[in-house]
């Protein structure tokens, strides 16, 4: 097999060298290197590939572009590695699949499909080398209908900055705002002459349009369009510069484009619902068949359907038909009725010519209730017969299959006669599975002449390559085959161009496939006219895991687990304005319902409606919630009344306590208002339903999943989730000041919107959006927030209810873009009263742009209107802003955001140190004196020895000696300037790495500031713990100087007695609680029980606090008939004492040890607006106020 000399070995897959004709789906279980090698060159590591990737992306259309929905809204997510990639060495297809899931490319990953694009783009370039007049030829062929003409105002004055060296691409961009797909100018082997030919042969493909340009406004230019003529002058890469330069004064220029079309089988082709032996994920028949390993006839159901491919010859020597000598080729091999009938086919084909002057095309026979269509293709004296059941393949379809098959055979083997037996086996074997024949692959680029393209397409289609890649991910696919293109080998004399002869050449097809989409559908650039977007071929990842991701993308409702079904839950939007009288008969009163399946709760809707309307008459207030009992499930139902409509949310009481449900309801209402403007518009417009579905399916997923956890015995998880969910705040990650200032600066830079863009056109224009502020999350923790509290609350709830934070905290995300119009509570829903006099909010629209990478999520609130331009319709995300935000993320990454946060989360305790309940119990059983002994106290300052000899019983002793050296040794540095000068007299060599990095940043003045900062002159410690420890350092300077190492302990007394804490800052909307890492240190069986009780109890206490607030408001209003003064109207503090006694106790002499602990909650009235919940052992004095202040000191700063 000859190699194409010009093929760059770069593209030559090593595996295919020894096997020329192979279809090699390489399911290597190894990790990325193989892939990356191909994409980026031999030596790039996988981590590098990510960054390279990001750079590459700037030159291309954003990947998310195609996911923008009709309303201009976008949710795009690529997941990166989910934890625990399995590396297995066996090569079974199943294994490969599994791996591909763990690799997480459930969605086309830019990492992988982008290089594929490039490969595709380059391949034709090579092929056309041998085609001297390919371009002309192409022009002749592809003239017809799909051309369009666009008139665009060209303004040459824009081009003044363009120097002569710049090529036509630049001109085109400046003149029309059309960005052409640019190739790397690479001089091929053939020298300059070849080069110009290559250039001529290349098409001018539109890659994008400049925002705000004429081209965008025309709304007719799509990505993938081929530029044919400028002002009726045919353009190519050779004359583009000159043609464009000739436009010297502003004028309307006519541009002629050719739209990309899928040149596949004709659109008339019916798509039938085939009850196919669907390639079940388990047995991978498709893959096996694809590789020729197994014929797919394992399934007996196929046997029952009559089907056959026969190649019969009339030149049989023997007379008797039964001898089978007339069968040249037969598939499937086993004898069937159709094989026995071959005499009929042969005879028909030969005889009908005499009758009708034409050979037979197809027949229909009835055999055992199966109507079988039989199509013939006569080739000389031979007949190719294709028989398929009519039920499965209609006649018209069969004709197409036949002609396609013939073409494939011709393309593959030159002619039908020369068809090689083995290939046909594979081909026909595959085809049975291909019956459904949906063009699943999407074409993204085509640089082949139409006829050639058709050949290639059919070849790929009938080899099921497209079907397979569209459904499954392949790590590596290489296919190499000699082709006999129709155009070149089979053209007749008539349609050939005179004076031109096809070169005497051989053609080879090289197909390289990589993860997922081999082809991509063309997408519209710029604001799309209402054009139905193609359903994005979202791949189905593994069945079991990744439910969250699927749910996140709205692909699947997470209700696969049957346990959900058992739990009654529903969201209903009911309307009293139903026309029909009987409630039970019709479901006209249901405006919206989720989940869709009927449940008892849906049947009960009459109750909900009646209650909501009637209780106003009884109590002057509408119903808030009900409790019902159904099949041993106590179900809580919460109502929200909106005019004459009622929004109902029902969840089982066991999973979601009533108080929690109330919060979910109010949050949901807020989400709906924020996302859709109002609750009514959310449910009254059908097009909002998908999004509602998603919000609610995620909600139920989150809630009911916890039920499963509950059944598994992870009680603590559930209660803590329930409590933290109720808190109106987001978890706060206290960064140390220097980093925080740095990140704040980066965000401020972004928000300032001071983008340096060399495009003058943009400068002249009014800005598209104003940035209202941004907030930065890492792993679901809030790092920085520059939004006003109310807006932040909106944004946070939106992210939370769309599970973005939950997902990013657990999985790495390669790329996440979310774009949604918001109706902020503050701006859209405020009443007249609380507005500032003389100030009106601008008449503006607001958009939320969220960009995420790995664990970091940056949300930006944009304002259109006001001082920015007004937005019309449903604007799609502006790539420019997305890029800016992404650049900011990269900048943050450069500022070591991940490292800082991870260090904060893992190595160094962020807050006060905790003590484990298990240990406390054990200690108390050993005796009191020991308890005081083991407390990790070292009184001597700056003595590492004493620090390193804490008692081994203390879990937190680990902390102590990790943290204390820094506490003692690290000089203070004020100001966030992070010049790289090494600070004088800094740390010892033994400091942890994180600290060392830190020391780089501290300024030279650190020693001075340390000296001036501490009143006693002693070196004052300042830990990375940031705010909290500022407090301790403060108190130390007030006289507790000798006690430096105790800085983390905020409880009074000799030993540490703090089990757990949560500090909520309602004003800022943040809360602080121990990190997972800290919890893991003190973890234990009893401790988790303690925590479970803590959270459950804190939920109750929180409820009382909220009730107290409500009652205070109620007492003002006269509306309430039943209001009674409650005991907790001004409640400040609540506490509960728990006692635990081990059930079994061996020692009869001693009394069993008991563990008693308090759960205390305290609310600080305005202006502090703070709530603190602590769990402490009851052994010592405690001053909660003092503790609360030390807890929340960090939050306030």
């Amino acid at each position, binding site marked *: 097999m000859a190699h194409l000399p010009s093929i760059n070995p770069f593209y030559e897959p090593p595996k295919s060298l020894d096997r020329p004709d192979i279809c090699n789906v390489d399911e290597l279980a190894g990790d990325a290197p193989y892939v990356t090698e191909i994409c980026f060159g031999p030596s790039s590591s996988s981590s590098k590939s990510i960054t390279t990737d990001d750079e590459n992306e700037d030159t291309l259309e954003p990947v998310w572009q195609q996911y923008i929905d009709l309303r201009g809204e976008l949710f795009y997510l690529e997941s990166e590695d989910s934890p625990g990639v399995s590396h297995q060495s066996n090569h079974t297809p199943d294994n490969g699949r599994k791996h591909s899931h763990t690799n997480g490319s459930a969605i086309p990953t830019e990492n992988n499909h982008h290089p594929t694009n490039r490969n595709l783009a380059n391949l034709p370039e090579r092929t056309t080398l041998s085609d001297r007049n390919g371009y002309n030829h192409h022009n002749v062929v592809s003239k017809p209908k799909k051309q369009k003409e666009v008139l665009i105002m060209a303004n040459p004055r824009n081009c003044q900055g363009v120097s002569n060296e710049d090529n036509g691409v630049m001109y085109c961009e400046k003149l029309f705002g059309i960005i052409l797909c640019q190739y790397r100018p690479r001089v091929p082997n053939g020298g300059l002459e070849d080069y110009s030919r290559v250039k001529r042969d290349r098409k001018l493909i539109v890659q994008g349009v400049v925002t705000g340009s004429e081209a965008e406004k025309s709304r007719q230019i799509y990505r993938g369009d081929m530029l044919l003529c400028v002002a009726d002058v045919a353009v190519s890469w050779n004359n583009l510069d000159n043609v464009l330069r000739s436009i010297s004064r502003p004028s309307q220029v006519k541009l002629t484009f050719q739209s990309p079309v899928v040149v596949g089988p004709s659109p008339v082709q019916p798509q039938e619902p085939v009850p196919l032996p669907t390639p079940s994920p388990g047995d991978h028949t498709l893959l096996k068949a694809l590789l020729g390993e197994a014929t797919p006839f394992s399934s007996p159901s196929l046997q029952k359907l009559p089907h056959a491919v026969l190649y019969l010859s009339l030149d049989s020597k023997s007379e008797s038909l039964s001898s089978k000598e007339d069968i040249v080729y037969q598939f499937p091999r086993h004898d069937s009725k159709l094989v026995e009938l071959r005499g009929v086919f042969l005879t028909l084909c030969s005889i009908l010519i005499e009758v009708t002057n034409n050979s037979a095309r197809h027949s229909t026979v009835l055999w055992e209730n199966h109507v079988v269509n039989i199509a013939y293709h006569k080739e000389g004296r031979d007949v190719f017969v294709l028989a398929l059941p009519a039920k499965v393949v209609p006649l018209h379809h069969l004709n197409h299959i036949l002609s396609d098959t013939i073409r494939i055979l011709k393309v593959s083997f030159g002619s039908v006669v020369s068809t090689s037996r083995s290939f046909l086996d594979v081909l026909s074997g595959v085809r049975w599975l291909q019956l459904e024949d949906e063009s699943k692959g999407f074409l993204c680029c085509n640089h082949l002449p139409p006829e050639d393209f058709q050949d290639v397409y059919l070849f790929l289609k009938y080899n099921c390559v497209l079907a397979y890649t569209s459904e499954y991910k392949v790590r590596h696919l290489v296919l190499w085959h000699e082709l006999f293109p129709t155009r070149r080998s089979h053209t007749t004399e008539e349609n050939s161009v005179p004076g031109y002869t096809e070169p005497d050449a051989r053609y080879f097809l090289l197909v390289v496939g990589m993860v997922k989409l081999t082809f991509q559908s063309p997408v519209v650039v710029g604001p799309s006219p209402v054009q139905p977007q193609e359903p994005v071929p979202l791949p189905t990842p593994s069945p079991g895991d990744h439910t969250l991701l699927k749910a996140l993308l709205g692909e699947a409702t997470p209700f696969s687990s049957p346990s959900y079904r058992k739990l009654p839950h529903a969201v209903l939007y009911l309307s009293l304005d139903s026309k029909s009288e009987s409630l039970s008969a019709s479901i006209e009163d249901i405006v919206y319902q989720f989940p869709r399946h009927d449940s*008892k709760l849906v049947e*009960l809707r009459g109750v909900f409606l009646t209650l909501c309307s009637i209780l106003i008459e009884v109590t002057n207030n509408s119903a808030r*919630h009900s409790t019902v009992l159904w099949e041993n499930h106590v179900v809580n139902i919460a109502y929200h009344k909106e005019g004459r409509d009622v929004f109902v949310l029902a969840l089982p009481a066991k999973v979601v306590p009533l108080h929690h449900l109330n919060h979910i309801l109010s949050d949901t209402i807020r989400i709906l208002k924020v996302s859709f403007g109002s609750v009514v518009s959310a449910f009254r417009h059908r097009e909002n339903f998908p999004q509602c579905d998603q919000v609610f399916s995620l909600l139920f997923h989150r809630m009911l999943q916890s039920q499963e956890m509950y059944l598994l015995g992870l009680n603590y998880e559930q209660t803590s989730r329930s409590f933290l969910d109720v808190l109106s705040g987001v978890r706060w990650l206290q960064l140390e000041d220097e980093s925080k200032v740095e990140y704040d600066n980066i965000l401020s830079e972004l928000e300032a919107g001071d983008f340096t863009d060399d495009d003058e056109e943009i400068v002249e224009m009014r800005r598209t959006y104003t940035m209202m502020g941004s907030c930065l999350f890492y792993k679901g923790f809030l790092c920085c927030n520059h939004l006003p509290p109310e807006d932040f609350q909106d944004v946070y709830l939106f992210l939370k209810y769309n599970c973005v934070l939950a997902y990013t905290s657990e999985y790495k995300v390669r790329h996440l873009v979310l774009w949604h119009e918001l109706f902020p509570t503050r701006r859209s829903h405020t009443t007249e009263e609380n507005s500032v006099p003389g100030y009106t909010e601008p008449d503006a629209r607001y958009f939320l742009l969220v960009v995420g990478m790995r664990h970091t999520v940056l949300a930006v609130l944009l304002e259109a209107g006001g001082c920015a331009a007004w937005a019309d319709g449903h604007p799609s995300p502006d790539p420019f802003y997305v890029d800016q935000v992404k650049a900011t993320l990269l900048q943050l990454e450069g500022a070591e955001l991940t490292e800082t946060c991870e260090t904060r989360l893992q190595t160094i305790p962020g807050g006060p140190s905790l003590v484990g309940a298990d240990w406390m119990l054990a200690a108390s059983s050993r005796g009191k004196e020991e308890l005081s002994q083991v407390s990790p106290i070292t009184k001597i300052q700056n003595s590492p020895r004493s620090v390193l000899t804490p008692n081994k019983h203390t879990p937190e002793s680990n902390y102590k000696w990790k943290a204390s050296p820094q506490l003692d040794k690290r000089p203070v540095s004020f100001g966030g300037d992070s010049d790289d000068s090494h600070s004088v007299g800094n740390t010892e060599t033994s400091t942890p790495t994180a600290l060392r990095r830190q020391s780089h940043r501290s300024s030279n003045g650190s020693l001075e500031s340390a000296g001036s900062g501490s009143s006693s002159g002693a070196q004052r410690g300042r830990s990375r713990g940031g705010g909290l420890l500022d407090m301790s350092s403060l108190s130390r300077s007030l006289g507790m100087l000798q006690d430096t190492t105790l800085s983390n302990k905020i409880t009074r007394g000799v030993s540490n007695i703090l089990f757990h804490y949560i500090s909520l800052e309602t004003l800022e909307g943040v809360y602080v609680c121990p990190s997972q890492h800290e919890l893991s240190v003190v973890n234990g069986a009893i401790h988790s029980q303690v925590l479970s009780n803590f959270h459950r109890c804190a939920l109750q206490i929180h409820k009382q606090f909220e009730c107290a607030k409500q009652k205070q408001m*109620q007492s003002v209003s006269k509306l309430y*008939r039943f209001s009674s003064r409650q005991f907790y109207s001004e409640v400040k503090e609540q506490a509960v004492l728990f006692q635990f006694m081990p059930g079994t106790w061996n020692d009869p002499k001693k009394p069993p040890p008991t563990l008693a602990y308090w759960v205390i909650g305290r609310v600080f009235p305005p202006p502090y607006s703070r709530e603190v919940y602590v769990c402490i052992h009851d052994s010592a004095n405690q001053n909660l106020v003092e503790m609360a202040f030390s807890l929340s000191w960090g939050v306030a700063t």
Partner: protein
Amino acid sequence: MAAYLFCLTAEGGVPLFSRTKGDLKPLPFPVIGSLNGVHMFASNQAVSLLSTTTDDAKVVWRVFHDSLTLIMVSGDDNACDCHFNQLLNLVFQSMVLVYGQDDLIHIKNVERFKKEIKVCYHMVDTLLSHDELSTFSDVTNAVDTILAPENQVLQAFLDAFVEAADSSYGCLLVHGKVAVATRKWWTFTSTELVLLSMIVAASPKCSSRDIPVFLPHTSPTVPHRLLTYQLMKGVEVCAVCGPNPSLASLEMEVGRFWRAAYESLKAVSRLHPRNFPTNMPIDQNILGFLLVNVESHKSLCTVQPMEEDTRKTGKTMGTMRRREILRSFYKYVVGTYFPSTIEGSSEEPSQFSHKVLETYITSDTHKCYAIQSGPHQMFALFQPCHPHLRNEICNTEDNDYVYQRQDCPFITHHNLLLNVIPSGQQSFFCIGLVNIIFWLLIFYKNMNM
């Protein structure tokens, strides 16, 4: 607290009676019908609608014996539903007490039933106006008692009198609270105990009564006679007996039996608002407390622990408000943290994996504290006290005395209170509280509580 109570037949939804308390307009029939309708509709769907709340009110449905539906609308207490259910249960049981269970379950003639059921109105109204009651037995499901040193003396008088009435069930009520009762009397269920003391208090004042009663659990279908005689103002002696003796014949005997106990009765009667002996020291800051024994179904409450010297302390909280707060606090704690004999109250506390011993709530105007140990539950109301108080009391000899009594289960808590409560903030848990509990316990030992 305003409230509606509707009673309808469970099958047809025919309204039988409705009671209203407070300043509420009567509801039109369609509204009542709809309220019942939703419940019926749900139960046809095999779902039982338990409760519904609005911003300030709560609606509770309950069906008894598939015959009567009770619907109550009242102010939302933000507490466990079990308290509403307890109230509805008491309403139904009081109907049984007065009318008999058979006639309630099998209503033959609705119109006649509507007329006859009016006899229970005064009981139902008393239950609905529970926040005006001086007792807590309706929420605690434990009968209110009064503790007096004279009780032992009175026991002998009572036993003798009840024997003369040919019965073994008798008790002495002082302002609706049981001072002493015969041993057999305490074998009644808690509901019966509560209702029997309540019916006496709810009935119109007269010197002697003969009321037919159906004991809801002991004998719901066969009526007994409840004979009561007023001995002096607020003091009544009751006996549950069979057909004999007649009211008049026993009345002759009353004077003979009780004349000698006059002084003791007078002494007990004087304890009335305080409900426990005057010689028991109690801290000034305690505004009231409620002590419940969930095993013996006895409770003791006071909201006027002492004669208040208003000149010294200034204006303190009114007794109504104190009762209200204690009531709310009880409802909040029981069913949330503490289990009780009330039906359904132990569900939520059992979700905690560890036992709750104590809880407190502080606000600007008052502080509440609850503790449970063994069968005893104590709920106390304090006024926000002065910081220096704690030190003073800690230094008294009382303190040492308390420490010496190591057998007392509350001593450990005393220790705890001293330690946990920091200076300045929670110091309201002063020694006074410990004293009360301590003394009460000693007292209760004598009193068989």
